[in-house]
């Protein structure tokens, strides 16, 4: 490959990698909004929390892989606690009640992270196995980013299997379109909500853990990711995982090729794209009808 082609190809892979991370965060947001109609503003907070957990597990055990497994689970568990003890008592008090609660939780996460870990930047190294770069046909690419892509694909497959091949997946998909009806069919919706909320947060947790070695773990991490994820969900429509996936990848690619060709506008491109989409599809691309 000549250098220019290599450059374009690696921009493509960058887009894919970032899109995948975006998808992990956005899919949880989408699932939660779609099914529970909760605009979870604390989502990015959990993303950050998971990065801190990863840091902490690595500090304790020295094993990144263990941290990658445990941190998202611990984060998901925190999410379930939040759903069970804070959101559930609030069911039925409307969109804005949930909103206030999630803002409150987001603030508390921000504050607690500082109480526990302080304000310093927590550096986290990549596992030795994934340091370095792969060299292939004139292309140099870091292992770790390829690993992130792979990890996201695995998570995506697990989610797809869960969603399309199991009864619980069917229930979730049914509940996305009409959770009252599912409830009236004798399915314990509150329990399902807790579970789905936990899974949504777990997804953000996976993203947080995966990204921790790439970004610095610091108290503003939540801000970095939150907005992008919400934009993905807004464009994709609520509750559509397939939509979230496609839009995330699109944004990832748009970002990297945007930087390559129209650098000045790249930071804006996502927002402009979103605004245009929302004018014509106020419910998002995949909002009204999943699975076209």
């Amino acid at each position, binding site marked *: 490959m000549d*250098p*220019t082609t290599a*450059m374009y190809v*690696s*921009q493509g892979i*960058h*887009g894919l*990698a*970032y899109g995948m*991370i975006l998808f992990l965060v956005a899919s949880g947001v989408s699932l939660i909004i779609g099914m529970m109609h909760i605009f979870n503003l604390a989502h990015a907070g959990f993303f950050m929390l998971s990065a801190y957990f990863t840091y902490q597990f690595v500090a304790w055990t020295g094993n990144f892989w263990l941290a990658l497994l445990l941190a998202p689970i611990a984060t998901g568990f925190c999410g379930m606690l939040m759903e069970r003890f804070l959101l559930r008592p609030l069911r039925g008090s409307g969109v804005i009640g949930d909103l206030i609660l999630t*803002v409150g939780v987001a*603030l508390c996460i*921000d504050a607690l992270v*500082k109480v526990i870990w*302080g*304000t*310093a*930047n*927590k*550096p*986290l*190294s*990549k596992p030795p196995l994934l340091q370095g*770069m792969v060299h292939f046909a004139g292309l*140099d690419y*870091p292992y*770790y*980013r390829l690993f992130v892509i792979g990890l996201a694909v695995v998570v995506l497959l697990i989610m797809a299997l869960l969603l399309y091949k199991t009864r619980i997946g069917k229930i979730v998909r049914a509940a996305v379109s009409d959770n009252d009806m599912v409830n009236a069919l004798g399915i314990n919706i509150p329990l399902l909500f807790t579970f789905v909320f936990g899974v949504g947060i777990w997804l953000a947790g996976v993203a947080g853990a995966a*990204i921790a070695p*790439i*970004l*610095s773990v*610091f*108290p*503003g*991490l*939540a*801000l*970095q*990711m939150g907005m*992008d994820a919400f934009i993905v969900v807004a464009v994709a429509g609520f509750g559509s995982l397939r939509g979230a996936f496609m839009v995330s990848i699109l944004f990832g690619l748009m*970002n*990297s*090729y*945007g*930087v*390559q060709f129209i*650098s*000045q506008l*790249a*930071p804006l491109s996502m927002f402009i794209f979103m605004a245009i989409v929302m004018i014509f599809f106020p419910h998002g691309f995949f909002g009204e009808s999943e699975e076209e």
Partner: protein
Amino acid sequence: MKTGKGILMFFYVFSFFFLLTAMSPIQATAAVKAKFDVNKMADMSGFDPNNFPNPTGDTIKIAIVATFSGPAAAVGEGFWLYATWAAYDINKRGGLMVDGKKKLIQLFKADTMSRPDQAKKICEQMVLQEGVKFLWGADGSHIVKIMNQTANKYKVIAVNMISLSEDLQDAKNFSPYAFMSWWQTSQVGRSFAYYFGQRKKEKKFYIMCQDYVFGHEMAENFKKGLKEYYPEAQIVGEDFHKLFATDYAPYITKIKASGAEVIYTGDWDPDATNLLKQSRAMGLKLPFAHIYMGNPATLASLGVEATTGLLIGSPYSNGNPAFKTPEQIKYHKTMMDAYKRFKPPYNKMDYMLGWDPLAMEFSWLLSVIERAGSVDAEKIIKTWEGDTYEYVNGHVKTMRACDHNTIQETYILEYVPPDQQRQSFNIPPYHWSDKSALYGPAFRVPAEKVLPWMDPNLERCKGKKPSDIN
């Protein structure tokens, strides 16, 4: 609520440079009016920033205006450390003679939460309710504007510590009550340009800054500087990424393909750290010319190889070797002793090299108060205008009278592996950090080459040259 998606000048504070030094020619000619005397320093063994013995009653009241909450709370934490350090010393010595009476220094935490409305509130609370006479801060130039406005309105002194924007001192925003004691974007840009122009090793530059006012100012001023000091230089690319970007890979790929030899960046953390970290991970080995990529913890996590060759600009240094006098060594040791005793949150690596630059800034303010013999704003202004002050390392700062900007020489320092750090760190253990590359050779940029910008429309400066001190 609205924490800081505003300016999170995160490491404005502590990613600084901790070099110490001797006098330079230009300042040798200007008589130094005062200097920091280590031998008069009090016993600092009881110093603890967590438990600063804050006096009350008839005191000299100074507000530390910074972000103490939100994601950028580290800024306030740092400010508190610098100020309490200097104030503890003075209080231990019995305070300052003000209006015929020895008074102790009382410090206030003024939390701006990175928000202009909160900044206005807190500054007014400080001035009107606490009777504060000095506002010392702040992170974010819009916050500094509010601070300066308040100072102007209620006739107290405001000192801009770390905001580098030039328009803070321009004709529209200038206030006689506001002083700027750090450096400005034009000085940063010109310092690097002068350095590269003299070194003539690299020719192709890539500019990578944050996409907001400060980033663009940094970029503009570097380009201006190059025109002035290094016309042969070539800008092979210029990119502005959004604040708190998560993925720098597309930019890094672009830089790799551009043939650049140096990347000039104005980024502060977390962007600076992420940019460096991701660049190295993607195999981009070029040096960064930067001012905020100095967080020791990050550097240590990246290791020696990844950090070698970085170039940092600093308004607080003195060339090699760093420790030139026994006084200075004593000061450094006192600081390190204190650091060993620190408890959270101050026990972090960010402070492991010391905090002299900004503690010195605070000492300058205290020295001015002492020499004015008053906390009255008019007397402070009179004393501070045209004042020269020598820091513990011999670095000399001069306050230009007409627009309250600081004239000083600046330094560009290259990061070298631990075994070569001896050339600058000339006392045991003979390195700044054994985990990463850090300060090696220091290049001096004479003060007359990097005079701060002067607004020609500012009435007070009419008919004056930038080099005119009074």
